[in-house]
């Protein structure tokens, strides 16, 4: 591989790592700030991806080989054959909205109950979404998948340098989301979420409506995940239900947050790059070491090492330090040995 090939590879790597960073940011809102145990990230990932894909795909073209072969009986049109063909960013926004609505419904039902119910519900929704798109062939072509997902501004950018354009698009979206989450996390809103994570009873006794804040956090995080799904769909440009298996669409994202530092937005992004680097990098190892099982084992080893050596992740939770005016900071007795 020559040097430009290496560079092409790194750009492709950066796109995937940044898309994963978006999911990790969403999970950080859920788990890192609020303590919501979402183990069904794959569900929002898939919903976002399918929503964007369905809304932006052009109508089928019978002169195209794939449409003729895979499209099957064109007389029996499915949702995916409507060719809604909307603008890229409409699809991205719709992905966020759909994920937000689904999160609102699940959250309203389960967030009043104890934490376990939310986990079970998210796991359930992830599998439901996958089986919906697998079995309801009218919606998204079942296991044959969606393959007509357009490139954003694909007509204007040369195909051989398209990734160099798309990496900038993903970077801009990630940057906007990072600023939005960072602002929210360091505001009084984020303070209430962290208080809920620490102790719901105290937070309620401090006059906060715990349920409402949990619901807001759940919806906000799910919308971020939906946006990640939409960017993913336009990057790989082929979706089938098999894409969203729990391993690469839920577990890996949890690993990223744990490694990078739960409760730290920069840590979430760093973790996405580190874990995806290990996952993608180990495929070049010789022989048995490039087996998926071995590569997964490497991620497991990394998690254990992080948990033992740096339990807070590579970057721990950020702590707000307030400087006092020197006059009032001194001269106080310690508040007593107990």
């Amino acid at each position, binding site marked *: 591989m020559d040097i430009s090939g290496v560079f092409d590879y790194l750009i492709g790597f950066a796109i995937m790592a940044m898309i994963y960073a978006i999911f990790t940011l969403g999970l950080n809102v859920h788990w890192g700030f609020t303590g919501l145990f979402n183990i069904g990230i794959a569900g929002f990932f898939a919903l976002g991806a399918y929503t964007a894909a369905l809304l932006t795909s052009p109508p089928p073209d019978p002169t195209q080989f794939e449409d003729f072969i895979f499209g099957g009986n064109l007389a029996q049109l499915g949702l995916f054959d409507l060719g809604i063909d909307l603008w890229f960013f409409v699809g991205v926004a719709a992905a966020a909205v759909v994920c937000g609505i689904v999160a609102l419904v699940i959250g309203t039902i389960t967030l009043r109950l104890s934490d376990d119910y939310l986990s079970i519900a998210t796991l359930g929704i992830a599998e439901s979404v996958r089986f919906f798109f697998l079995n309801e062939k009218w919606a998204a072509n079942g296991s044959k998948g969606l393959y007509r997902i357009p490139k954003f501004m694909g007509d204007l950018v040369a195909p051989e340098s398209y990734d160099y354009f798309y990496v900038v698009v993903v970077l801009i979206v990630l940057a906007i989301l990072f600023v939005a989450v960072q602002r929210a996390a360091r505001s*009084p809103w984020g303070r209430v979420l962290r208080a809920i994570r620490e*102790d719901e009873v105290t937070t309620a*006794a401090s006059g*906060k409506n715990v349920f409402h804040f949990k619901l807001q956090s759940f919806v906000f995080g799910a919308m971020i995940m939906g946006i990640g799904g939409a960017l993913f769909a336009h990057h790989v440009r082929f979706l089938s239900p098999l894409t969203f298996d729990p391993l690469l669409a839920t577990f890996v994202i949890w690993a990223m947050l744990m490694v990078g530092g739960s409760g730290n937005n920069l840590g979430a992004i760093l973790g996405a790059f580190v874990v995806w680097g290990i996952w993608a990098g180990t495929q070049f190892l010789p022989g048995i070491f490039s087996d998926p099982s071995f590569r997964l084992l490497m991620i497991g080893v990394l998690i254990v090492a992080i948990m033992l050596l740096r339990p807070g992740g590579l970057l721990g939770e950020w702590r707000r330090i307030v400087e*006092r005016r020197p006059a009032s900071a001194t001269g106080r007795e310690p508040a007593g040995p107990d």
Partner: protein
Amino acid sequence: MGSEGKSELTNSRPILQVRSVTKDFGGVRAVDRCSLDVLPGTITGLIGPNGAGKTTLFNLVAGTLAPTSGHIIFEGQAIGGLRPHQTFARGLMRTFQIPRELRRMTVLENLMLVPARQTGERLWSTWLTPWQVARQESRIQAQALEVLDLVNLAHLANELAGNLSGGQKKLLELARTLMAEPRLVLLDEPGAGINRTLLRDLSANIVRASVERNVTFLIIEHDMRFVMNMCDPVIVMANGSVISEGTPSAIQRDPRVLEAYLGGRVSGTA
């Protein structure tokens, strides 16, 4: 301290009325047709042997638990069955017997959480009007630092609350109540695990809040010296209901109270 005849204010309307409140946990009746009044401006003590139902009564009044039956009336309005954030909004605040600090947040953040109606608690205003949020934040921060000065925790402002000692956590519990403008504060054993010096500070803070800010206190406490010095009237609970009520000196002479504490037949053996 608080005994300048406050129990003579009997004709003013009670700030808190508990009427025949019962709470069952399965087969256990923790609170049994309990009725009591708390008069505005008082520092009322609530004592009784372990298992008398005092903390459960607090949980019922603050909304952490819903009563099985009976009425709880705060400033003329029924609050039985309201959720904790709703009773807080009406001016009622409580602390916890075992401190429930927010461990992985700083002491300052523990306090800055409390003030109600913060604009920055709306997600969109953190994006759209950050300057408003920042202005309110600096005001709340100044207030929190003042409160920390009051309870002698100022030097620990940036410390994670989980790292405080047991006594410091108790002070943090009290400090939380000073961050809001409650009209009734329920303190659950504020003195437990605090040394004498700290307890004096704590008492001074309670009296100051009572006098200067017109806060009414209902205090569960086992330290009798604290109760007899601070509280008037004193209400005694045993087996889920009120068995006696009066001035500290009257309570001390009441044979029913002795009986409840000693568990024997004090009055019957004579």
